[in-house]
């Protein structure tokens, strides 16, 4: 198998897989090591640069999706489109996560004084926060943090760029 053949096979596998497929899974099928698979995926990405598709990493696996800028067109195919603004509850929750991450839902609720599960869910749907793992505490609660998308939308490079002025110490 040449690299070119491998590239086409790997592209096909990512497209046809029913779950985001990891470089390990691909490597087992094409009998290549993970780093070779990763570099071949980069080649596919380069080829995709001029088209509508994009290979994204989700949960350690690859997935072919359409480029985000096509969303307004693809939405016309009947995907639900939501342009509702962030609720106050969600914005408060997002603020707490941004400043305190990694943070559990219980910790968020302690600060807000109200249940926050629907706010957390809506932030996950909007891809502004994601799960970061689990806390070593009774019940092993999920820890949340902000996503790449969060930084993009707020024009931030890192959490250190969050303003700290006037915030009293809590932790």
């Amino acid at each position, binding site marked *: 198998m040449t690299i070119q053949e491998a590239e086409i096979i790997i592209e*096909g596998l990512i*497209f*046809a*897989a*029913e*779950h*985001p497929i990891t470089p390990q899974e691909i490597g087992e099928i094409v009998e290549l090591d993970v780093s070779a698979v990763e570099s071949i995926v980069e080649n596919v990405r380069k080829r995709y640069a001029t088209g509508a598709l994009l290979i994204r990493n989700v949960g350690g696996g690859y*997935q*072919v*999706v359409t480029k985000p800028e096509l*969303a*307004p067109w*693809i*939405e016309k*195919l009947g*995907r*639900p*489109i*939501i*342009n509702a*603004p*962030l609720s106050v509850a969600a*914005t*408060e929750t*997002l*603020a*707490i996560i*941004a*400043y305190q991450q990694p943070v559990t839902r219980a910790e968020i609720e*302690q*600060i*807000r*004084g109200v249940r926050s599960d629907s706010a957390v869910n809506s932030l996950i*749907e*909007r*891809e*502004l926060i994601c799960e970061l793992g689990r806390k070593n505490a009774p019940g092993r609660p999920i820890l949340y943090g902000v996503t790449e*998308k969060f930084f993009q*939308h*707020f*024009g*931030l490079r890192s959490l250190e*760029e*969050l*303003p*700290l*002025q*006037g*915030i*009293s110490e*809590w932790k």
Partner: protein
Amino acid sequence: MGYLIQLEAYEGPFDLLLDLIAKNEIDIWDIPIAAITEQYLEYLFSLQEQDLAITGEFLVMAATLIRIKSRLLLPPEPVEEEFEEEVDPRLELVEQLLRYKFFKEVSVFLQERYSNAAKVFTRGQMAAQLDMTPIFTDPVGDVTVTDLKNLYSALITEAEKEEPVHSVPSSISLPERMARIRVQMVGQPRVTFQDLLRDSTPEEIVVTFLAILELVRLGEIAVVQHESLGPIDIEPFALEVEVQ
């Protein structure tokens, strides 16, 4: 010749007949009915010897073949009208066979397409994972980093405070509100629901509403809405004014 015919699985009598015609290299438009009938029946007998069930359709075809054979043996019936042509008794069968043969060929074509189509794969991740994810055109809206900071700062300040002491709400009781409504209505033909709610806190609205319900129950007032979505009027029935 009896057992020469292999015991093949035929889809039906047409399938069997077409196979016999092909094996004997017969012109389908000139089928030697006697010979074919003989072979056809031999096949059925061989099935019978193997204790294999012969479906009704095969037997019906056997009868049809025998009928065609006997009609071919009989002298042609006298033609009643001159221009009526003698129809070959085999014609109907031939037409049926050709029609079946056509679809049999098409089904070979379809089988081929079917197995080729099995070689291509569609996108693996369908609706659930990809398509039905709602698209948030503007997931953040007008919220700015400063908003986040201010909110966080306010929340933290609030959370740092001591457990708040529950303040006693400066609310009025239900009997008190009922009494006030009674007073408000003195000398009035009606007041509107809105009048009673004017400048009320949410809690007062609830108390007012309950007071109205209670007064209705006591038969002191009537609540009337003259048109749909119009103002709700509250009219006195028999007022008992109690001044506190």
